[in-house]
C-alpha cells in the first residue's frame, strides 16, 4: 500500500480536493449573499448548470478560458434575472421558482447540448496554471495548492473581499438589513428591491462562474446534469457558514478533502464497502450541521417577499 502513496499520488489527491472545492466555494459565496439579503435561492443549481453550459460554449468557441468564465458568469446572471423578476419584483414563492429554474435549466442545457455537441463531445485542452513562487516548492502540498489556474486564487481572494464588504462597507450593512429588517432599510431611504436584486444578480454571476469552472477546468467538457447537485451543497455551506465567507471556504475545502479521501481509501484497498466510503463527505457535512447548525441563525426575512407597508 505504501508505495501507492507516493508524493505524486498525494499531490494529485490534494490538487483534486482544491479543484472539487472551488465550484462549491463560488456557489456557497453566492448563496450566502442572496440569503443575507433575504432571498432563499434554491435556483442556484440552475444558475450553475447554465453557467457551466455558457462557460463551456464561450471557452470552446473563443479558445479562451477567461472568456469562458465571463460567459459562464453571464449565463448565471441570465437565470438570476428570472429569479429577480419573479421573486424579488413580483414577490412569488422563492422555493417554487427556484426549483422550477433548476429543473428548467437542467432540461434546457441538456437539450442544447443534444443539438450542439452530442455527436462530437468536444473537450478543452488542459488549463494553464499559475505557479506561486517558493510556495509551490513545498513537498506534496506545494504543487497541490500553489499550481492552479489564476481563477482559483481569485476565488480565494474573493472570500476576503466579501468579508471586508460585509463587515466594513455600507453595502454589507444594506444587504444585512434587506434580509433582517427590510422595512427599516426602506425607511432609511434604501431601495429594498434593488438591494435584493443586486444580491441575486451577484449570486447568479458567482454560481455561473462556479459552473464554468466545473465544466472548463474540473471536467474539461460539458455533459448534461454535470453539476450533479453542487448547487445544493453550496446552499448547505452557506447556511452553515452563518454569514461568514471564511467559513464557506473552510466548508468547501473540507468537502473537497473528504472527496479525495474517498478516492485515497479505495486506492489503498481498504476493505470496507464502497458505499460507506462514499458517505464520508456527506457525513462530514452532517457532522458540521450537528456541531454548528444548531447555532446558525438565518435572516429574519429570509424567503419573505418585501412589500412596502405590508404587515
Amino acid at each position: 500500500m505504501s508505495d501507492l502513496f507516493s508524493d505524486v499520488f498525494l499531490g494529485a489527491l490534494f490538487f483534486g480536493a482544491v479543484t472539487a472545492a472551488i465550484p462549491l466555494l463560488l456557489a456557497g459565496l453566492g448563496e450566502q449573499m442572496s440569503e443575507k439579503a433575504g432571498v432563499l435561492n434554491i435556483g442556484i443549481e440552475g444558475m450553475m448548470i447554465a453557467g457551466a453550459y455558457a462557460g463551456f460554449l464561450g471557452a470552446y468557441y473563443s479558445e479562451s478560458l477567461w472568456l469562458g468564465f465571463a460567459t459562464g458568469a453571464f449565463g448565471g446572471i441570465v437565470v438570476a434575472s428570472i429569479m429577480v423578476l419573479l421573486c424579488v419584483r413580483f414577490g412569488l414563492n422563492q422555493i417554487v421558482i427556484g426549483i422550477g429554474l433548476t429543473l428548467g435549466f437542467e432540461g434546457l442545457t441538456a437539450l442544447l447540448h443534444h443539438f450542439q455537441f452530442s455527436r462530437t463531445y468536444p473537450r478543452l485542452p488542459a488549463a494553464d496554471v499559475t505557479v506561486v513562487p517558493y510556495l509551490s516548492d513545498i513537498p506534496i502540498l506545494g504543487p497541490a495548492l500553489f499550481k492552479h489556474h489564476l481563477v482559483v486564487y481569485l476565488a480565494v481572494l474573493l472570500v476576503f473581499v466579501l468579508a471586508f464588504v460585509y463587515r466594513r462597507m455600507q453595502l454589507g450593512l444594506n444587504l444585512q438589513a434587506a434580509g433582517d429588517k427590510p422595512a427599516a432599510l426602506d425607511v432609511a431611504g434604501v431601495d429594498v428591491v434593488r438591494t435584493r436584486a443586486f444580491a441575486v444578480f451577484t449570486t447568479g454571476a458567482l454560481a455561473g462562474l462556479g459552473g464554468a469552472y466545473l465544466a472548463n477546468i474540473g471536467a474539461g467538457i460539458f455533459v448534461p446534469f454535470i453539476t450533479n447537485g453542487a448547487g445544493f451543497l453550496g446552499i448547505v455551506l452557506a447556511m452553515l457558514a452563518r454569514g461568514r465567507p471564511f467559513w464557506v471556504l473552510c466548508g468547501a475545502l473540507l468537502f473537497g478533502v473528504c472527496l479525495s479521501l474517498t478516492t485515497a481509501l479505495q486506492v489503498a484497498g481498504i476493505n470496507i464497502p464502497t458505499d460507506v466510503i462514499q458517505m464520508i463527505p456527506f457525513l462530514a457535512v452532517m457532522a458540521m450541521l450537528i456541531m454548528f447548525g444548531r447555532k446558525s441563525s438565518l435572516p429574519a426575512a429570509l424567503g419573505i417577499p418585501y412589500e412596502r407597508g405590508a404587515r
Partner: protein
Amino acid sequence: MRKYITPTLSAILLSGWMLGSAVSAEVKSIAILTPEEGTDYGWNQQGVDAAKAAAKAAGIEVIVAQGLGYGDVRPTLRELAEEGASLMIAHASGYNTAAPEIANELNVPVAIVDTPSALKAGLIGDYTLSGHQGAYLAGRMAAKMSRTNTVGIVVSGEPPSWNSQSAGFAQGVKAENADTKVIYAVIGPAAYSDAAGGKRVTESVIAAGADIIFGQGNGSSFGMLQAVETTKAVDGGKVLFIDVIGDKSPIDKGFLLSSVVWNIEPVYTAMINDLKADTYGTKSYAIGLEDDSVMLLKTPQIPDNVWSDVQALRDDVISGKIPVEPVFDATAVRALMGDVKE
C-alpha cells in the same frame, strides 16, 4: 348433409384461428426510456439504437423517451402506456422501482435492468446484461500492454452489470500477469453524469501508477477520457483508456485502446418474440462473445500480436476452455482487486 358439414368445418377453423390470435399478444410498438441522451457512445446510445433496430426488424413502431434524468419517471411511463406502447423498456437501474409499479398498475409489460428477481410472467422482464467475457479479454490485453504494471478501474456506480465487468477485467489482468496491480475506484454514489468527478478520480488513479484505465461511467466517462488525454502516466508516457458498452472511436484523439462493445438488439428482439409468444417475463436475457453481442473493439493502439493473442483467448472463452463467470456482488468484486486486505 354436405351443406351442413362445410359451414361447420369452416366455423371451427375460423374460431380456432381467432382463438389463437387472441392468445398470442399483439405487439404494435415498444418504448424505451433512457436517463441521458441516446448519443453518448455508451449505455444510452446502445439501448436506443438497439430498440430502433429491433422494432424495425419486427415491423413495429418505437417510441424513444431520452434524457429523462435519474429522478421519478412514473409520469413518463404512464404517458407512454397511454400512447399504447406494448412494451416499455426502462433502460436504467434507477427506474427498476417505478417501472414494475406502473406495469402492475396499468397492466403494460415493462423491461427493467439489474433485478432478475423481479420477473413476473407476462408483465415484468429483466435484462441484467453482462459483458464480463469481453471485460476479461480487455483485462488480458491491459496486462499485456501496461508499462507500469499497474492498471486502474474507474466506475461511476456499482450496478450489477458493471460489477461483473469490473470483476471480469480484474480476472483477466490477474490471469495474464498475477503481479500486475489493479486499482479500483468508485467516483461516487450514482455519479453517472459527474464528469468532473470522473476526471478527478481518474487523475488520482493515474498518479497512483495506472497507465491503462478501464472506465465505466455514462456521462462521467467523458471526464475519465479527458483525464487520460491530459495527464501523463508516472513513467511520463501516454495513458490509454478502455471504454465499455459503446464505441467512442468517432471522438477519440488517440487514447482509446479498446471498448467492450455491447449489441443489445438480440435481447430486445427476443423480448418482442416472447411477448408475441406469451412467454415474456419467464426468463432472463444474456449477451456474450459467441454471437458477437459482446465484442472487443479493435483500435490502432492495439499491436497486431496482442490482438492475435486476444482473439485466440476469445476462442478459448467461447469454447469454455477458459471459464469466465459473472460476479455481480460489489464486495466480491473488491475482493478480486490486487491490494485488498481481508
